[in-house]
């Protein structure tokens, strides 16, 4: 479903955010992505979305080479991917409901169906009562849940979530991950970037560990604390 071949991303300033990263994620897999602050997680996810181009290497998503994808095809790639951005990226001039149903709306869904779909999804993240609020009238955790609802609404083939529970307490996080598991069981490929080591350990799923832009671990055995710690120490993250 998603393959990286020797992908390097160097920013104009010279910062190397990804350094010869290669991996493959099959259809229907559930993968955690972790690594210390500044390791390159968000950068990696942005390349999947064709938000940015790699400096070097090949990226295949859903069989399509996203590097050589013509501009006009990009929206269709993105429509097949539900994304929870680390900084939410809600549209401030649109209500919660309009934010969540943006994609169904421009896909031409009937307004009755939009309604059902939007409220159903908001209910799943516990925010149906905030449907008519604007993002700036929400708490941090509420904004994050709107972002999650927007990613789930279209039943995407791939779900990409960047630190989706950073502003949520344990119980809510559990529920959100339960949602991710549900959608995964229905066949969606899920990639979640997170700092939450306990959860990674408990889940026992496949984990990709980045460090200073390099992929230092790719395994699906439960990760030991001792195993994670050395690579998670700060201060030498490739600056």
């Amino acid at each position, binding site marked *: 479903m998603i393959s990286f071949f020797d992908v390097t991303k160097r920013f104009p300033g010279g910062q190397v955010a990804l350094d010869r990263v290669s991996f493959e994620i099959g259809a229907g897999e559930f993968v955690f992505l972790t690594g210390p602050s500044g390791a390159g997680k968000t950068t990696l996810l942005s390349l999947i979305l064709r938000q940015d181009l790699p400096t070097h290497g090949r990226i295949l998503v859903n069989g399509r080479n996203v590097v050589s994808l013509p501009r006009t095809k990009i929206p269709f790639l993105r429509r097949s991917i539900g994304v929870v951005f680390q900084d939410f990226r809600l549209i401030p*001039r649109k209500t919660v409901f309009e934010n969540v149903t943006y*994609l169904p709306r*421009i896909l031409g869904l009937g307004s009755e169906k939009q309604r059902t779909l939007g409220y159903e999804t908001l209910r799943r993240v516990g925010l149906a009562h905030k449907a008519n609020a604007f993002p700036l009238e929400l708490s941090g955790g509420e904004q994050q849940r709107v972002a999650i609802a927007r990613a789930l609404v279209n039943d995407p083939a791939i779900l990409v979530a960047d630190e989706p529970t950073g502003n949520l307490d344990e119980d809510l996080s559990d529920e959100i991950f339960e949602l991710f598991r549900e959608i995964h069981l229905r066949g969606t490929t899920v990639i979640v970037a997170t700092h939450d080591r306990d959860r990674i350990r408990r889940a026992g799923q496949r984990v990709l560990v980045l460090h200073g832009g390099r992929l230092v671990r790719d395994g699906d055995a439960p990760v030991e604390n001792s195993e994670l710690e050395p690579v998670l120490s700060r201060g030498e993250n490739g600056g």
Partner: protein
Amino acid sequence: MTLGKALYYFAREALLNLFRSWKTSLLAVTTIAVSLFIGGFFLMLAANASRLIEDWKSEAMVVVYFAPTTDLNEVDAARSLAGSPAWVEGVDEVTAPQARERFRASFPSVATLVEGWEEEPLPASLEVSFDPLLVEDHAFEAWLGELEELPEVELVDDDRDWVDQLELALQLVLGLGLALGAVLLGAAILTIASVIRLTAILYQDEIDVMRLVGATEFYLRGPFYVEGLWQGLLGGLVALGALFGGFVAVQPMAEGSLLLGTMGTTFLAWPQQVLLVGVGAVAGLLGAIFSLRREAI
């Protein structure tokens, strides 16, 4: 989505955005309105000025002076020849005494010149008014020549120098007006584009997000284009309203004043009003298109 549904969606989104960010909308509309107000002001001025010059032009005449002591009863040939061409609008007769009186009134300082003569000192004449627009140069010259060759005619005085001067002045005024109008319209479009461009920068994040969740350029841009169109339309209507308000307010003052009295007597004609609002709408749309060029976001 069908095109109809898409257009409906654009219009609705644009209207919502217009209201939700009414502060920026107000700014954009104000800017467009100000630009168009100036443009409309000049349009009105130019229209009135050219009307004035047309008025003057229509007073251009050919004067046929008869030999001294010619009796106006003996000049039928000249009269019918003078009245024959299509461009002639009227033929007035000026008798010798009338000519003398006019001279006295016009040149009081040398009035003595026409006094103390036995016969009338000035000849009788025909004043032929004509429509300069219908005149063909060649036929006109020929006609003048014929008139001049009549035995009773002493001199044919042709106002066309005057007409030519007016023609030139009109062309210059229109040219100047056109140049000015172009400068102002350019300024207006630039300003509108600036404002919409700023608005676009303001909503860049919003556009980025839409793009990231899979909106095609068509659905992304549509509402912004229509928003520009609404703003331009509104700006045009506001400008027209302000112009009309100003016109009505200034009207009583204008009656007392020479320049305003001749210049500011008619408001913009219907087509010009439509033009003004249309330019606003197009400018708003162009500004939106200009400001949303792909590389600009």
